[in-house]
């Protein structure tokens, strides 16, 4: 545990004083998990609101503005509605897998949040294989989608799920390789260390050209990973209706929905950490106020989130074979060349350091 | 091509066996290929016989802006094939296919246009058999006829021989009656003024 806030310290000491050590640490973990869950559930809802607002601004509309001040409570109301809705499903669905699928998706999304350093001192789980963990976790979600699509006993859902499988397996490579390119500079997989390295300049500056290429590839592949337009083959509204979650309703649908937005946040957060210096302020302008790191981190992440939304509301959707062409004929070869170039740059010490 | 020229060209394709000038129908259809001869020939045929129609086809221009050809159901397919394939007529565009309930008879009206010569013609076919009206399909000549004939089948109950997929297109499978026929009655859904 790496949170050294006054209040967490107090709780930590108190927990260890009233119960045995093992129980106390488990209780502490559960508490932290609960806090993360609560905070990010609400945060995810506001991401949905942000998406709807941003979409509206792209589309000459106003977006939700009736519930609460300027529509701020809109998605909370939606969530309330979804909770109260009846859970419907198909008769011949594989009940166990059908019910399991949404939890797979949402849990894998939330798990990934644990490793992000929001500031220097605010990180739930500083694992030394952070990047590896993120890549691993983010591909578990697709199992949930596959399960959900397959077990709903609906052909549209099945097509959606199969597309998702193909898509995630392919784009996983590019996500991994583009991050690997950056790891060549940092020399560490640990997220906190990666941010430390960037005190000499953000990695996108340090790695200059190959880093920019890696960032572009990461954004494309990351968008594909989260199944968002222009890579929303999985849902493909005009083709498959609702895709893999056709047969889900109420809260189970909400899990899928929320997971999509948390995944988007995760991809943006990885991009922020790997390319834009995480919680570091630009040129160190707020170095004396370490708590502003949260602000910088979220600010940078939201900018990238809005960039992803910009993609979504501008581009048409790819076809499934073009999706694979893009990955295997363009992104992957470029990525491999890019790694070699980056290795050369690191070897020759051509990194730009401020 | 003018209507008159069309009539002179098409008429001799199906000579009337009652008309003593030409006797064998099949032979003329086969020997039809060189149409330069036929146009000359048709003038000779058409003029003298006022009472007996020299052709199995009935031509008329009354009450219509196009040349109308009334054809017997037996000759329909042969005529249509000729109209499409003959280089001078070349009616390659079937722009309207309508079923009509003439009261005693059921019929189909084909509106044809040539995209090369830009002349238009109307072909009509009728049958008095209201119970089981059947015509040959033209869907193998013009692909658009596929759906149009299915529409006629839905609403007039006219069946088409050799149609590739003759089943209800608009109506449900268990629909009774043929809605666009004049004698169709539906007391619930039809508002009659």
């Amino acid at each position: 545990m790496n949170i050294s806030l006054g209040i967490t310290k107090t709780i930590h000491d108190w927990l260890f004083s009233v119960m045995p050590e093992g129980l106390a640490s488990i209780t502490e973990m559960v508490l932290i998990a609960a806090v993360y869950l609560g905070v990010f559930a609400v945060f995810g809802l506001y991401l949905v609101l942000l998406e709807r607002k941003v979409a509206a601004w792209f589309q000459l509309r106003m977006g939700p503005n009736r519930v609460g001040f300027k529509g701020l409570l809109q998605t909370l109301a939606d969530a309330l509605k979804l909770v109260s809705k009846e859970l419907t499903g198909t008769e011949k669905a594989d009940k166990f897998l059908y019910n399991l699928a949404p939890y797979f998706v949402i849990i894998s999304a939330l798990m990934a949040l644990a490793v992000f350093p929001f500031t220097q001192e605010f990180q739930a789980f500083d694992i030394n294989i952070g990047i590896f963990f993120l890549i691993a976790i983010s591909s578990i979600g697709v199992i949930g989608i596959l399960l959900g699509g397959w077990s709903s006993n609906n052909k549209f859902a099945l097509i959606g799920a199969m597309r998702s499988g193909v898509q995630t397996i392919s784009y996983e490579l590019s996500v991994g390789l583009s991050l690997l390119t950056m790891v060549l500079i940092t020399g560490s997989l640990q997220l906190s260390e990666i941010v430390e390295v960037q005190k000499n300049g953000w990695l996108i500056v340090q790695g200059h050209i190959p880093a920019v290429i890696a960032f572009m590839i990461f954004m494309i592949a990351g968008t594909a990973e989260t199944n968002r337009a222009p890579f929303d083959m999985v849902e493909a509204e005009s083709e498959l209706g609702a895709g893999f979650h056709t047969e889900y309703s109420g809260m189970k649908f909400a899990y899928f929905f929320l997971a999509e937005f948390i995944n988007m946040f995760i991809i943006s957060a990885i991009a922020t950490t790997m390319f834009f210096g995480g919680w570091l302020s630009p040129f160190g302008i707020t170095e004396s106020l370490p708590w502003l790191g949260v602000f910088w981190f979220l600010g940078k992440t939201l900018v990238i989130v809005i960039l992803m939304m910009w993609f979504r509301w501008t581009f048409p959707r790819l076809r499934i074979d073009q999706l694979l062409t893009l990955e295997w004929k363009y992104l992957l070869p470029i990525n491999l060349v890019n790694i070699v170039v980056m290795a050369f740059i690191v070897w020759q010490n051509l990194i730009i350091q401020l | 091509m003018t209507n008159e020229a069309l009539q002179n060209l098409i008429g001799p394709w199906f000579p009337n066996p009652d008309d003593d000038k030409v006797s064998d129908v099949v032979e003329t259809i086969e020997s039809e290929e060189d149409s330069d001869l036929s146009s000359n020939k048709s003038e000779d045929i058409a003029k003298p016989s006022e009472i007996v129609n020299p052709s199995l086809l009935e031509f008329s221009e009354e009450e219509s802006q196009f040349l109308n050809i009334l054809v017997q159901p037996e000759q329909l397919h042969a005529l249509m094939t000729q109209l499409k394939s003959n280089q001078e007529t070349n009616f390659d565009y079937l722009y309207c296919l309508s079923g009509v309930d003439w009261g005693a008879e059921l019929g189909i009206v084909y509106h044809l246009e040539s995209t090369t010569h830009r002349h238009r013609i109307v072909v009509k076919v009728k049958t008095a058999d209201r119970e089981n009206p059947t015509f040959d399909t033209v869907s193998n000549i013009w692909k658009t006829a596929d759906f149009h004939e299915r529409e006629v089948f839905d609403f007039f109950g006219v069946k088409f021989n050799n149609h590739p997929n003759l089943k209800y297109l608009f109506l449900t499978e268990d629909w009774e009656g043929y809605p666009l026929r004049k004698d169709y009655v539906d007391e619930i859904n039809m508002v009659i003024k």
Partner: protein
Amino acid sequence: MSYFSNIYNGIKSLLTGMSVTGKVFLNARKGTITQQYPENRETLKMFDRFRGEVVMPHDEDNEHRCTGCQKCEIACPNGSIEIIWDRVVNPETGKKKKEIDQHIYHLGLCTMCSLCIEACPTDAIVWAQNYENSVYDRSFLTKVLNQPGSKLMDGVED
């Protein structure tokens, strides 16, 4: 080489597309075309010719111009107009004259084709610019256009 020019042209076209939506995004505040109904009810004005519903104008003496000629009823394609009429003896002249009892208009059947208004020889019925036609029960859509106790305006003949 076409491989790289493909990539270049592709990215360029994507950026061009993003510039269009981006421009709209930056002008989102004033570019919005959404109408805030029902908040803008006061300012929302229909055009003069807007076909909202058929009404029969009455003057201050509660007089209308409908002679009961039924031309509108015949012109209507959907049977949305029914006229109940009677012959009434005019006490002054002693002549029998057609007079409407009820001019019934079924808004629920109306397709706003304007044929009745074109057919009316005395301009007794006109379009109202009322656009809020939804009601809680279908029966409210059947309206009697002439007000109770109303009379035919003097001098209106068809």
